[in-house]
C-alpha cells in the first residue's frame, strides 16, 4: 500500500488515476442503480400498463436524480475501458485486440446506458402520460440495458483471446477463462428478449440472480488484477516483471525458515 500513497505523483500516475477512477465509477454506478434509481434488481417484465405507471410513481425522484447523476458521470466509464485497452496493448499480441475492445465498449455506451437513462427520465418526468406509452418506456429502459449483449459477448472474448495468446504474463491464464464466464452471461440473457416470466426473464433466476453476481465477481477480479498489473508494470513493452511479494503470505514466516 505504500506505493499507492505517492501514486498520483510518480511515473505511473496515469495508470493509478485510471485505476482509482475505475473503482470509484463502479462503486458509484452500483449505488445509483441499486439504491438511488432502484432499477436493480430490475422491475417485473410482466407489469401491465397501469402497473408501470405505479412503478414510475413509486420511484419518481430516485429515477430523475439517479439518472441525472449518470448523465453527469457516465462518461467516466471510458476510464476503465482505457485502462483495459492499455492492459491489452501491454501484451505481446497485436494492437488489433486493444482497439477492438476500445471501440466495442466506447460505442456501446449509447444503447447500453444512455437509453435506460433517457427512457426512465422521460417516464418519470410525465407521470400523467398514457399508461401504454409508460409501459413502452419501461420496456425500452430495461431491455436496452440488459439486452445490449454483443458488446460484452464479443468484448469479453476479445480480451480472453488476448490474455490466452499473451506471452508477457499480463494476466493469469485462469482470468482468460473467467472472461468466458462473463461472455456466457450474455448468451443466457438473450431469452429475456422472448420470455416475460420465469428463470429466463430479465429479472429471473438466471437472467438476474446468476448473471449479476457473475458480472460483479468478474468486475471485482479484474479490478484487483489491474492493480496487480500496475504494481508490476515497468512501463516497457516486454514481459512483465514478477509479481511483488504477496502481502498476506509475507505475514507468515518465510518458507525457507520454516523448512530448514
Amino acid at each position, binding site marked *: 500500500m505504500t506505493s499507492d500513497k505517492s501514486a498520483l505523483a510518480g*511515473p*505511473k*500516475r*496515469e*495508470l493509478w*488515476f*485510471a485505476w482509482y477512477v475505475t473503482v470509484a465509477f463502479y462503486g458509484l454506478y452500483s449505488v445509483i442503480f441499486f439504491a438511488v434509481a432502484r432499477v436493480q434488481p430490475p422491475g417485473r417484465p410482466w407489469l401491465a400498463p397501469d402497473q408501470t405507471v405505479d412503478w414510475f410513481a413509486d420511484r419518481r425522484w430516485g429515477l*430523475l*436524480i439517479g*439518472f*441525472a*447523476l*449518470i*448523465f*453527469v*458521470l*457516465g*462518461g*467516466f466509464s*471510458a*476510464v476503465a*475501458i*482505457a*485502462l483495459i*485497452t*492499455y492492459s491489452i*496493448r*501491454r501484451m505481446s499480441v497485436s494492437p488489433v485486440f486493444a482497439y477492438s475492445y*476500445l*471501440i466495442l*465498449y*466506447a*460505442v456501446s*455506451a*449509447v444503447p447500453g446506458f*444512455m437509453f435506460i*437513462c*433517457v*427512457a426512465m*427520465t*422521460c417516464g*418519470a*418526468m*410525465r407521470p400523467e*402520460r*398514457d399508461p401504454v*406509452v409508460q409501459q*413502452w*418506456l419501461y420496456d425500452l429502459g430495461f431491455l436496452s440495458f440488459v439486452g445490449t449483449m454483443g458488446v460484452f459477448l464479443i468484448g469479453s472474448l476479445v480480451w480472453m483471446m488476448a490474455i490466452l495468446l499473451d506471452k508477457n504474463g499480463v494476466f493469469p491464464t485462469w482470468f482468460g477463462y473467467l472472461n468466458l464466464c462473463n461472455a456466457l452471461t450474455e448468451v443466457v440473457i438473450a431469452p429475456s428478449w422472448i420470455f416475460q416470466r420465469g428463470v429466463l426473464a430479465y429479472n429471473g433466476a438466471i437472467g438476474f440472480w446468476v448473471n449479476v453476481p457473475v458480472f460483479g465477481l468478474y468486475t471485482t477480479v479484474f479490478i484487483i488484477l489491474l492493480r496487480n498489473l500496475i504494481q508490476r508494470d515497468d*512501463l516497457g*513493452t516486454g514481459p512483465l516483471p514478477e509479481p511483488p511479494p504477496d502481502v498476506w503470505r509475507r505475514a507468515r514466516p518465510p518458507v525457507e525458515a520454516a523448512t530448514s
Partner: protein
Amino acid sequence: MGERIIYWTWVPLVVIWIAGFLLFPGFIPPVSPKASAAEVADFYRQDLSRVRYSMILFNWFCVALIPILMLIAERMRAMAHRTPILRYCVIGVAGAAPIAFLTSTVFWLLAAFRPDRSPDLTLLCNDLAWITFTCGVPFLVALCLFLALAIVWDDQEQPVFPRWVAAFNVGIALAIIPAAFAGLTKSGVFAWDGFLSFWVKNLAIALWIVVMAVVLRPALEHNRSESAATV
C-alpha cells in the same frame, strides 16, 4: 496536408451547426417542456419542413466533429505522458458524444415523419429527442475533464496546448453539467428550455469548438518531444 484539410473543416462545421440551429423552429425559442401533447403535435404540423431539413442537416454533420476530435487525440501522442491511457479515454468518449446528438435527431425526425400520428406519441418522440439532446452530455463532460488532466500532466517545456486550456476545459465541463438535470423540472433555469440547460450549455459547446480550433492550429506544428512515451 490531410490533417490540415480535416482541421479546416471546423469552419464549415460551425457555419452548418449555426445554420441548423437557426433553421430548426424548436430552438428559437426552445419548445417548452410544459407544452401539452396537442401543442407539441401542432408544432410539428406547422413547421414540418424546417424541422425535417434542420434535423437532416444535424444528422449529417453532428458527427463531423469526430475527425476534429481525432486531431486532438492524435496531438495527445506528443504530450509528455508515460502511457496512452488519457488518449484512449478521449477516443473512448469522442465517438459517443456526437452519437448521442445523432440519436436525438433520429427522435426529432421520427416525430416529424408522421405529424398526424396520435399527439401522445408525438409528445413521446419530442420528449425522447429533447432529453437525449439536453441530458446526453456525459461524454462531453468527460471529454473536457480528460483533456484538462492531459494538459496538466503534459510536463514539458513546450506543452502541446497552453496551460490555460486545461482551466478552460474545466470551465466548459462545469457549464455543461447543469443540463444533465433537465429531467427534474419543467420550468426555470434547469428545464430543457431554461437558461442553464439550453443557452449556457449550447453556447459553451460552440465556444469550446472555436477555442479548441484556435489552440489546435499551433499544436499541429508541435514537434514530438523526446521524452514522450511510445506505447
